[in-house]
C-alpha cells in the first residue's frame, strides 16, 4: 500500500517506536508486524474498521496484553510492559473508552484514586490544589472538584479522565475512542483538550471511528487493516483514500453509497461527496 505521508513529522527522535509487533490469540493473528512511531508533541490517530486491531494495540501499549513478537522502544530504550503499572510508571497513561471513573466519588478522589497523598491521613488540600492545577492547565470547565462525578456531563467526565492520566506526568497518552459517547459541543471541547495536551509536548495516540474528529486534531493518521499497517496519511488526505485504506478496496460499500448520493444530489450540490 502506498505511503502518502505529506505532513512534516514532529522533530526529534520518537517517544514511542514499535517495530514488528505481532499478537496472536491462539490461531487468530490480531496484529501482524505492526510498525508505529509517535513523536513528542504529536497526535497520531489510529483508525481502522472493527477488528483491525486498534484496541489490541492500545492494550499492548497500556500493558494489559503482551506482544507475541516485536520490540517496543520507549524514549530510546527497549522496554517490556508486563502489566498496567509497568506502563504507568514508564510514563504511558491510558484513557479507556469507558473512562473507568467512580461515580460516587468526587473529582479529586477520582483523579488521585489509588495514588492518594499520605495514605493514613489524606492530604485533601494539596490533592485539591493539584486537581485544580491539572484542570486549569487543560482549561477545563468543571464547576466543582468536590462534586461527585455522577453530576458531571459526558465531556466533563472525559476531562476528568484525561486530567487523571496527566497526574503522573506521562510522556505518552493513549485515548481509546475519546469522542464516541459525546455530543457536538462536548466533542469540540475534548478535541481542544487533546490539542492542549499535545501543546504540552506529550505524544498522543488517539483511536477514533469518526473521520471528522480525526482530521480535526491528528497530525498523522495511521490506518490498520486486519491487524496490519495499511498506510499513513496526512490529515488533509482525501476521504476516498482513507476509506479505501480502511476497507481495503477502492470499490467498497462506502464509496458505492457516496457515488449514489453524489449522483442524486449532483444537480443541486456538485461538491456533496460525503
Amino acid at each position: 500500500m502506498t505511503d502518502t505521508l505529506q505532513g512534516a513529522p514532529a522533530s526529534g527522535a520518537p517517544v514511542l517506536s514499535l517495530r514488528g509487533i505481532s499478537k496472536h490469540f491462539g490461531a487468530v493473528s490480531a496484529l501482524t508486524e505492526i510498525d508505529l512511531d509517535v513523536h513528542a508533541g504529536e497526535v497520531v490517530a489510529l483508525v481502522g474498521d472493527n477488528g483491525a486491531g486498534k484496541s489490541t494495540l492500545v492494550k499492548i501499549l497500556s500493558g494489559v496484553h503482551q506482544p507475541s513478537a516485536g520490540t517496543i522502544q520507549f524514549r530510546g530504550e527497549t522496554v517490556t510492559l508486563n502489566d498496567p503499572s509497568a506502563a504507568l510508571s514508564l510514563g504511558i497513561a491510558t484513557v479507556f473508552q469507558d473512562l473507568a471513573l467512580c461515580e460516587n466519588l468526587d473529582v479529586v478522589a477520582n483523579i488521585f484514586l489509588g495514588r492518594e497523598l499520605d495514605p493514613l491521613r489524606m492530604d485533601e488540600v494539596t490533592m485539591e490544589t493539584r486537581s485544580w492545577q491539572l484542570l486549569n492547565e487543560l482549561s477545563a470547565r468543571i464547576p466543582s472538584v468536590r462534586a461527585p462525578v455522577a453530576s458531571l456531563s459526558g465531556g466533563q467526565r472525559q476531562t476528568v479522565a484525561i486530567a487523571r492520566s496527566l497526574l503522573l506526568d506521562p510522556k505518552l497518552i493513549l485515548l481509546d475512542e475519546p469522542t464516541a459517547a459525546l455530543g457536538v459541543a462536548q466533542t469540540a471541547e475534548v478535541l481542544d483538550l487533546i490539542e492542549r495536551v499535545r501543546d504540552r509536548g506529550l505524544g498522543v495516540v488517539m483511536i477514533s471511528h469518526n473521520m471528522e474528529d480525526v482530521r480535526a486534531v491528528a497530525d498523522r493518521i495511521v490506518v490498520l487493516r486486519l491487524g496490519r499497517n495499511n498506510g499513513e496519511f496526512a490529515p488533509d488526505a482525501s476521504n476516498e483514500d482513507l476509506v479505501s485504506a480502511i476497507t481495503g478496496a477502492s470499490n467498497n460499500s462506502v464509496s458505492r453509497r457516496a457515488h449514489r448520493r453524489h449522483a442524486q444530489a449532483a444537480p443541486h450540490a456538485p461538491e456533496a461527496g460525503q
Partner: protein
Amino acid sequence: MTDSRNQAVPAGEPMLDRRDERVAHAATFGDTIRAFLDRIRSGDLGMLPVIIGLIIIWTVFSILNPVFLTPNNLVNLLFDSSTVGIISLGIVCMLMVGEIDLSVGSVSGVASAILGVLWVNHGVPAGFAILAAVAFGALVGFIYAQLYNRFGMPSFVVTLAGLLTFLGLQLWLLGSTGSINLPYGSPLVRFGQLLVMPAAVSVILAALPGVLMLYTGFRTAARRKAAGLSSQSSAAIVTRAVAVTVVAEIVVAYLNQGRGVPWMFGLFVGLVFAMQYALTRTRWGRSMFAVGGNREAARRAGINVRMIYTSAFVACSTLAAFGGVMAASRLASSSQQAGTGDVNLNAIAAAVIGGTSLFGGRGSAYSALLGIIVIQSISSGLTLLDLSSSLRYMITGGVLAIAVIVDSLARRSRVSHGRA
C-alpha cells in the same frame, strides 16, 4: 473561566475553586440553608431520615408510656445498643463494598461460646479468651474472603453457608448443657452490666468532639486559605462545634440524672469514630468507597481489589465476634440463644436504617450508631408496652422495609438529579 496557570492566587483573582461563574456558591447563611434543602430534594438524604424517624419513634413511645424517656431506661437502651451496634459497624464495612454478611449473628454466637468454654470451663484468663474469640472472627472473615475472591461465590451464599455452619459449631461447643454462666462480679460482666462513667468523665468526653471539630476546622480553613482555596468561615466552624457540644452535653447531663453513661457505650462510640476516620481519611477507606462504587474502575486505578474485599470481610467478622463477646458480658452467659433470633437482621437493619446504602459505595460509620438506637428504641418501647416479641419482629421488619424503600427511592432521585 480564566486560563491562569499560576499556582498562587494574585490579589483580586477569585479563589481556585470559585472561578466558574456558572456555579452558585453559598455565601450567606440563607444560601447555606437553601443549598441544604436542595440537596435533600435531590435525594441526598444523609442522616435526615433516621433523625426524623428517631424523633417520631421517641415521641410516640413517650406518649404511650412515660417510662420510655426516663434516664434509666435510656441508659439500659444504650447498654443494649452497644453490643449489636458493634456488629452493625462491621456490616457497614460490607455494605460499603456492595456485599453483605448474613452470618454475623452466628459468628457472634460462636465467639460468645468460645469465650464461655475457654474462660469458664477451661480456666483460661479472660483476656486470652476474648482474644481467641476475636481472632476466630478474623479467621472466619479471611475464609469468607478466600471463597469470595477465588471461587467467585456471591457473598450472601458464602455467609449463608457460614450462618448454618457456625450455628452448628456454637451448639456443638456448648454441648448438652446449652449455656455457660459467666461469673458475676468479674470485670467483664460488670463492664457489660454495670460500669458507667463518672459524671465528670462523661462531661469531658462529651466536649471532645466539639473541641476536635474546632481544632481541625480552623486548621483546615487556614491551610485551604494558604493554598488559595475557598474555606469555611470561622462563624460556621464555631456554630457547628457549639451545636454538637451542646447536644452532646445535654444528652450526657440527662443520662447522668440516671445511672450515667455506660462505658460499653463509650467503647462503641469510640469504635464508630475510629471507623469513620478510617473510611473517610485514609487510602483504605477511599479504596472501600471506590470498590463499592465501581469495582472495575478501582482495579484499573491500581487498587488491589481482592485485598479490599478481604479487609471488608475480616473487619466485619472480627467486629461481629467482638460484638458477641460484648453480648456475652451483657447477658453474663454464653448460651445457645446468643446471636440467634433477630441479632443478624437487627445489625443489618441498623446499618441500612442509618443511611448506608445496600448498593455499595455510600454510607458512614455513624449509620451504625444512629440505626441501632432506632432499632433498640423500637424494641425497648414495645417491651415497655408489654407487647410480645411476635409484634416486635413484625414492627422491626416493617421499619427495615421502610428504610430500604427510602434508600432505593433516594438512589433513584440522586441518579435523576445527577448526584452519585
